[in-house]
């Protein structure tokens, strides 16, 4: 499971920094083994396999080449926590900044859960899934932020 992710601390520029954008991602069999990048708002990047990213419904739609979103081309999903709090009724008032800290940590927990989920989705019915272990790995200090982010990401 640990092979699936690498963590880098890069400065996000918002341009299409390619990570293996060699193939256009049109071939289905190639798509399954692609790596995609998940970025948090404070500059942390997580590179995971596409299969792992698909544990999240929102990201699955973002990366879907038929979906028409820009992320499908660049293969970069930005988890901007500020977007997740976009409950403002009017579309005009955008990002309401929240002062919460440690966004990278929250994204890391999300990625951790995604790896956990995509790994255990395929085991047979007899194997035990260490759910309790995963639950214990969520520290209460960030649990509410993780809750909101997870809800936004549909996972």
């Amino acid at each position, binding site marked *: 499971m640990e092979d699936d992710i690498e963590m880098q601390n890069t400065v996000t520029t918002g341009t299409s920094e390619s990570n293996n954008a060699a193939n256009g991602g049109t071939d289905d069999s190639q798509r399954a083994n692609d790596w995609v990048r998940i970025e948090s708002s404070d500059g942390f990047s997580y590179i995971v396999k596409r299969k792992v990213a698909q544990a999240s419904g929102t990201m699955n739609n973002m990366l879907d080449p038929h979906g028409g979103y820009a992320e499908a081309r660049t293969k970069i999903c930005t988890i901007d926590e500020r977007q997740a709090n976009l*409950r403002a009724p009017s579309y005009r008032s955008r990002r309401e900044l929240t002062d919460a800290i440690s966004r990278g940590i929250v994204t890391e927990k999300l990625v951790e859960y995604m790896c956990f989920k995509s790994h255990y989705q395929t085991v047979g019915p007899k194997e035990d899934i260490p*759910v309790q272990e995963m639950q214990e790995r969520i520290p209460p200090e960030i649990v*509410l932020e993780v809750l909101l982010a997870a*809800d936004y990401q549909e996972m």
Partner: protein
Amino acid sequence: MSRARNNNVRGPTSALTEFLRASGITPTTVARRAATQQGQQQAAAGLSNDDSQQQQDEAGSSSGSRRPSRAASRRGANRRESGYGSDNLDEDDEGNREEDQDENGADEEAVEEPERNSPAPAKKRKLTKAAEAKLKAQEKKKAKGKGKKGSDDEYQDDDDPYTSLSKSMWSSGSKPPVGDFENCAKCEKQFTVTKYTMAANPGPGWLCHVCAKASGKDPFKKPAAPRKRKAPGDKREVVHFVENRLPTLVNLCIKVVTQHIDDVESLGDIGTLNVEAIAKAMAKNRSLTAENAKLFYNTTNSKLVLYDATNLSSPAFESLVYLNPNLTSLRLDFCGQLDDPAFKVFTTSLPALERIELLGPFLVRSPAWKAFIKAHPNLEGFLITQSPRFDLDCLRELVSHCTGLKELRLKEFGKMSDDFLDEIADNLGGQGDSESILEYLDISSPGGESCSDAALVNLLSRIGGSLRCLDVSKHDLLTNAFLLGGLQQHTHSLESEWENPPLVSLDASRNPELQTDALEAIMKHSGTRLESLNINGWKDVEENGLRDIGRQGKEMRKLDVGFCRNMDDFIVKAWLEGEDVKGRKKGGCMELVELKVWGCNRVTANCPKKPGLALHGVESHIIRRT
């Protein structure tokens, strides 16, 4: 496969195996014979069957002594067998027992004594007790296939059957024709050969039915057990989605929150905006419980919204009130468990309450409503959805006590009727000099019959002046007359007497009778200021009427024209871009933010879009995704 044979499994087989079965030859038979022969020869295994058989015959000269010597050699072979692998100890026992079983005549004691090893006497004692069951136990053990023992079995069987079987074929020849008499090889009795006759284990001869059965290999035995084992194996192929469902991360987080609920500090700081988001996230999963809800309670709260109070019981509601005594605005969705005692606490312990919004408080009875209303004369917002018990009396109390009511919602009420409207009109409506202040009225989805035009017109005539928001959906009997008479009418009267702020928001959805004329009337009346229009369900509105919206509705922000069958791409275009009037673009709904076109078949994916406009309900969008 050999294991299967031991259990008398009769599956599809080749001609060879059919023959072998008919002759009553099994691998154990063969193996024993082979082992015997090997033991006798003490040499290479590739002997012809005839030779070995002859030697056996020679070893035991007479038929009488044939058996014991065979038994002896067999036992010796068995002892040597056990030398193959130490795990064979049990096999040894059983093998010996089986042979002994074959000769349950009188010869046992006399012959076996000198030949036996020391463990043998013990085995003999066991033998006599569990005579019948042993062989079955042996078969069972072979069925279980205990590791090495099983494999040893197979090795012995695998090595030998192909050679030994051919030997046995030549030696035993074919069965005597069915119907003939034969002497049993064991008990020497005469019996009739049937197709079920089995060959005797040690060498030529045939067993009568009794002896065959005694040896444990009942030819009639049906292979029932293996089939049972196969079926569950098949069932396991099915993937059990439900059993194996991974909890979602949201679920996990909620569990963690519940764990730490008492230690609020540990949960980190949550701003006011986030509280709503968290409440929504928890409500989506219906995981708000009496425990979790404490997260949102705070004595300084003035506003509390719980989007899903399904799991809150009556005592939980009481504690909700006690812990949030300073509420001014309370909204509880799906509060089905809210009953009279709990509501009493609402009545007594929420002094500052000005606005209450409840969805689904069907347990609260009329007296309780009355008490509540009496206790809160300052109520400005009374929004209740779904209550079959709120009756005219309660309404009377409401309108007489709470004169400052600005928002009234009596949605999906079982007892809604014209009388209600009259009451409202009489008490909340302005008469003479006084103005009405009712701004929001929602009386949609009545439980019984829809209210009539007349009553509604009457109502509107009284309160129309201040009304900013009107929802009369699902009153099926309303017709054009209502709009022409009601909306236009009251404006007419209003115009003459006081200010006429046009409706800002009109929701008249699902009134299929209302048509183009009505729409035109609306637009003419308040079109220029209308910001939100919902004519969902007005299926017969014509194109012209729809275009009219574009012409007049300059301030339109939200439009719901679902199921207006005449809606199509061109109209959308006209709305978004304005229409060509003498070469210049004019009109259009420039402020449009949200457009819902559910059920409008003619709006396709090609309809024009504008950045900032949220377009919901285009059919082709939905179909493409799946």
